[in-house]
């Protein structure tokens, strides 16, 4: 069986500053995969390369059968890759409902429909309501995104990502800035929306990582230090030295 996502020898630099120096990664279909690593390890850069925001200097990005290296973001999204952002990246003046509906419209391939009235497309409305229910955002449906609380904005961020029903979900620090209670809620939410999908997430919170991930990869200054199931990663001496043991306690373990 082909892998859901495969990165081969990815290199990237920012005007000479080497950020990724030969990253390999294989993610199996249906797997929940977490990428961890210290700040500046290149995690977000890696996400930007997979989702088409950046073109790698070298290497290939394979999504199932497709070579998506350097493809524009909208093409990659249409193939079934949905991503969220570490820094809130929503539609500030649109309501929660309008925002999620825009994602539903895209999933249904009606982006260029210039004739039918959006408000009268009942099935679009129904699907949007379903997504809002799933993410427990229904009571905020008519609130503009910029008037949401930070935690709610994080939820909207995930709602937008999953509303296009991606096969591969990329979450970039979905719990960044959330308190313990919100984080706990987010874990349940991520589990629900990634049911039956492939999930890759970048995350700093070790509780989230070790609760959710089937496999963990450790990115350390541009290279994959290790990749394996949580227990193996936790025991890995090199990983402990580089990351887990020094700054973070292995929460949840």
């Amino acid at each position: 069986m082909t892998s859901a996502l495969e990165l081969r020898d990815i290199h990237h630099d920012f005007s000479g500053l080497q950020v990724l120096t030969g990253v390999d990664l294989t993610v199996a279909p249906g797997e929940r995969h977490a990428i961890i690593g210290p700040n500046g390890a290149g995690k977000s850069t890696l996400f930007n390369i997979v989702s088409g925001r950046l073109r790698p200097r070298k290497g290939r990005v394979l999504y199932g059968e497709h070579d998506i290296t350097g493809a524009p973001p909208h093409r990659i999204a249409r193939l079934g890759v949905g991503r969220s952002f570490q820094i809130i990246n929503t539609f500030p003046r649109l309501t929660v409902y309008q925002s999620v509906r825009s994602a539903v419209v895209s999933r249904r391939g009606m982006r260029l429909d210039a004739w039918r009235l959006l408000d009268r497309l009942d099935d679009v409305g129904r699907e949007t309501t379903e997504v809002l229910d799933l993410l427990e955002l229904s009571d905020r449906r008519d609130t503009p995104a910029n008037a949401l609380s930070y935690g709610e904005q994080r939820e909207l961020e995930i709602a937008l990502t999953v509303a296009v029903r991606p096969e591969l979900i990329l979450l970039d620090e979905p719990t960044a800035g959330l308190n313990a209670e919100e984080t706990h809620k987010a874990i349940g939410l991520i589990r629900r929306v990634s049911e039956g999908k492939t999930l890759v997430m970048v995350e700093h919170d070790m509780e989230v990582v070790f609760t959710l991930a089937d496999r963990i990869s450790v990115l350390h200054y541009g290279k994959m230090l290790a990749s394996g199931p949580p227990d193996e990663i936790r025991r890995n001496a090199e990983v402990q030295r580089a990351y887990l043991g020094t700054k973070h306690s292995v929460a949840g373990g």
Partner: protein
Amino acid sequence: MMRRNALIVAAILLLYLVPFGLDTLRLRVAIEILYFGLFAVSFNLLFGYSGMLSFGFASTFGVGGYAVGLIWKHLGAVPLPLAVVMGAMAGAAVGLVIGFFCVRLRGTYFSLLTLAFSQFLFAVALKWRDVTRGDDGLTVIPPDLTLPSGFVLHMGNALHFYWLALTVVLVCLWLAWRFIRTPLGNAALLMRENDERAAFLGYNVFGTKLIVFTFASTLAAVAGALFASFQRLVSPGALDLQTGTEVVFMALFGGTGAFLGPFLGTAAYILLQNWLAKTTEHWPFVIGFLFVVMILFMHTGLVGLFGRGGPVQRLLRLNRTPVEESR
């Protein structure tokens, strides 16, 4: 809903009857408001709805005007509606080309490139005398229009022209109003709000912006075609910087947050300008001052000032007791 539809029908009827209460001079002003109003609304599709501030929007306005002028000069008595459609197509074509280069850019760069294109077209209109007659302007002679009922609309008759222009403008406004309620119109909003995120949802940013740019240009060309038909003349001034910035002001004056805001802004601007011009020769100074005040203190324009929850409404409610307020 029923009540709203009835109100709209009543308003439209009233608009058709307006000329009977106006003398010819005022009727000419009303016609001017119609096509400049359409121009401002189409500008706002681009600016207010899609977040693209064009300083060169007069380009396609002028193209529409020159198109109908040339059609009647070279193809003979093409009926005005058909000529307007052809003018609109010319506007669409030019909009497509200009948009192709401009919509890749954002913010100030976009604005400046639209400005550059409009200056380029201005130069063409000025220098290509064989076709455009340069700064003498091209005479535009719309033929009289015989309706299916046998009624003849005389283009020289302000009343007849008003009805014709009103019909064309209403159709265009309806198309624009409808457009922003379709999925594609919604995509235009996404471009304004956050085009990058839209791309990650599968929206083609370049394609969406190009379509919106072209559509807005098409409607602007219709406005320009009506303008030229009514003035019976189109000169390079139709696509110069002043026309391009005037439409920005008219839209901002009315309020870019509401569909008809720019239309109201146009009406207010033209009436104000006419009145001021009669009162003082320094009227551009007053208008300029007003513009500065608007930009500094009233971002939401007249609609924001008089609309729901605006300062005027709050002022009128001052006398009410809080109990009434909460009901």
